[in-house]
């Protein structure tokens, strides 16, 4: 699956989150570009990424930073 994420770094939170199927690369790419163009017009600096993962759970495992706050990341690490 393809995931489009618009992320506000300083606030540490996701602004936009969309899912696309494996065959929707072009749609996802176009949507990403549209968001970037709009952010550029507004002078807003957000991170906009396209990520590919087996499912959303796998995405959370490898890109926890987008979904969890600092304390949650730390707490997840102490469970072993």
């Amino acid at each position, binding site marked *: 699956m*393809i995931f489009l994420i618009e992320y506000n*770094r*300083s*606030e*540490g939170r996701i602004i936009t989150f969309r899912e696309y199927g494996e065959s929707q*690369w072009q749609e996802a*790419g176009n949507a*990403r*570009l549209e968001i*970037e*163009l709009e952010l*550029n*017009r507004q002078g807003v*600096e*957000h*991170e*906009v*990424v*396209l*990520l*590919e*993962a*087996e499912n959303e759970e*796998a*995405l959370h*495992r*490898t*890109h*926890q*930073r987008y979904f*969890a*706050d*600092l*304390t949650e*990341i*730390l*707490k*997840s*690490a*102490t469970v*072993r």
Partner: protein
Amino acid sequence: MKNPLSKTQIDQLGDRLRAGSHTEEDLRLLDDYRLSFREAYETVVQKIRGYGEFPTGRVDKSTLSIVEKLRRESIRLSQMQDIAGCRVKLADILQQDHFVASLRTLFPGASVIDRRDKPSHGYRAVHVIAEVSGKPIEIQVRTALQHLWAELSEKCSDVLDPAIKYGGGPDEWRNRLTSISKSVAIYEKFEKAHEEFEKAHSEFEKAVAELPDHHETNQKLRRKLEVSTRGIEESRGEKVRLWNVNADLLNKMISRLDDLKRQRQ
């Protein structure tokens, strides 16, 4: 398909992005440039899937990250090796070593950047740069603990100070991250040695169990096995102790964050 950008055009685009003088057309050009990595990215990910791992792919680097890297380093856009890439998270260093060796076979000629013994501002991982049709694709291979540290560092940079990730920012947080990185490195080195010891001990134990009881040599081997068993028990205890050092550092960081939250309320 549009005509590919020349190297000069790519670097001029990079210069405009670095200077912050880029236009909407430049963002479209950057998108086309990133798109030119897609086929190589797909090839790399398919090969890794064929091997049995399912990496998470960052299909292409975000504009913000590209601009920051151009400003931070004296690098040209055409030289960036991480425009597209993917990430594999594995349990421990033994699995990481094994997987990196497999990547070398899957992608002959790939360059390997091992940041485990020489971390970059505390960041430890192995990056394998595979080249497909002239396009570099970065494969990040991390253990669970290396990954945890990277996530912590990124999140601290996001919400506390962007400079933390590159060795700057407030001393307190940089020092906390450095301590965790060093502690994790010690733990992982010990864990690797311990796992090898466990394996050897288990094989020794199995071999001794198959021997007849009465032979004198076998009695000697049994005594050696007892020594090895005591060694394994001590090693297991040391592994737990070293993990507790990590956990203590993490818990102290949680407490400090809780203090800060309370102060802000």
